[in-house]
């Protein structure tokens, strides 16, 4: 009898993990289903250049035009009050080198006196048939790196 009583008094110290594991597996399943595996971002293009792209700050404002000549060369024109202020002709060995040149040209402009005094408010890109969309996005990236937010693309005519 005394042995039986002793057995009844024994405390079961084990934790019941069943519900905990159930909950964890449910959460893992839900998160696996709702997980985003490919991070898709967006580059905003504002096509209403003529009306909405007007300057709002008191700082001197400039407009930038990036005109592709072909895959490896482009012209950058910086305008002030609609008039040509500066022009850069860029010609490189490869499209990748051209993007780097665009980047360094913009960097040079930002470091110049005019660049420090004013701000490029709007930018327009004029594409060419041989320039791919991927290369145009790289050029857009280069412009956005210098905080140029109002970027538009000129709808060009030409054979596809």
């Amino acid at each position: 009898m005394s042995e039986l009583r002793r057995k009844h008094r024994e405390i079961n110290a084990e934790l019941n993990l069943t519900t905990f594991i159930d909950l964890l597996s449910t959460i893992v399943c839900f998160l696996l289903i709702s997980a985003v595996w490919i991070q898709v971002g967006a580059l905003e293009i504002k096509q209403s250049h003529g009306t909405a792209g007007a300057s709002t700050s008191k700082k001197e404002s400039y407009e930038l035009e990036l005109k592709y000549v072909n895959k490896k060369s482009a012209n950058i024109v910086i305008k002030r009050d609609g008039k040509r202020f500066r022009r850069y002709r860029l010609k490189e060995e490869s499209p990748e080198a051209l993007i780097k040149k665009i980047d360094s040209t913009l960097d040079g402009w930002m470091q110049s006196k005019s660049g420090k005094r004013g701000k490029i408010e709007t930018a327009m890109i004029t594409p060419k048939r041989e320039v791919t969309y991927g290369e145009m996005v790289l050029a857009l990236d280069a412009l956005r790196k210098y905080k140029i937010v109002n970027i538009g693309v000129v709808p060009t005519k030409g054979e596809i």
Partner: protein
Amino acid sequence: MAIGSSALNTGNFEHVLLNRNQRGKRRGKVLQATLMLTSMVDMFSMLVCFMLQTFSSTPEILVAKGVTLPDSITGKTVKEAPVLSLNKDELFLDQKLIGKTAVVLKKPDQLVSKLIDLRKSWVKAHPGEAFGGDINVQADKDVSSVVISQLMGIVSGQHYSAIQLAVLGGVQAE
């Protein structure tokens, strides 16, 4: 009262030892049957923590088949809007085929009418709100930039002036 054989051999020390040994073996077998859940629970908890950290509630747009998006370092979070997909030779609006790109660019009537319908349904669904003009464009990175610029011209002509170009990576908080 029946006397069992074990009761008859109580004085035999060998038997007692043998019985004890057998009991010990039985106990050992029972111990082996228990599952060690600690590592599994640890792994589950770590998985849940990692996935909760990477969880995002931003809208996700489906990338159409045959479209390789270009890479970017200045991309921002995607907004919910109609999706215009463009692979190497076909054009889709919200995953519905519009036609061959070259044909659509020459005669954009079908695309224009669908864009107008989408705008009207948006205005109906959001009474009193100004139309934002958001549209997502996802195009293959090898498509000519002129095609994209012409499409942008058509789209912006229908009051879709905030064009979001879908890119891979570089998602920054606004």
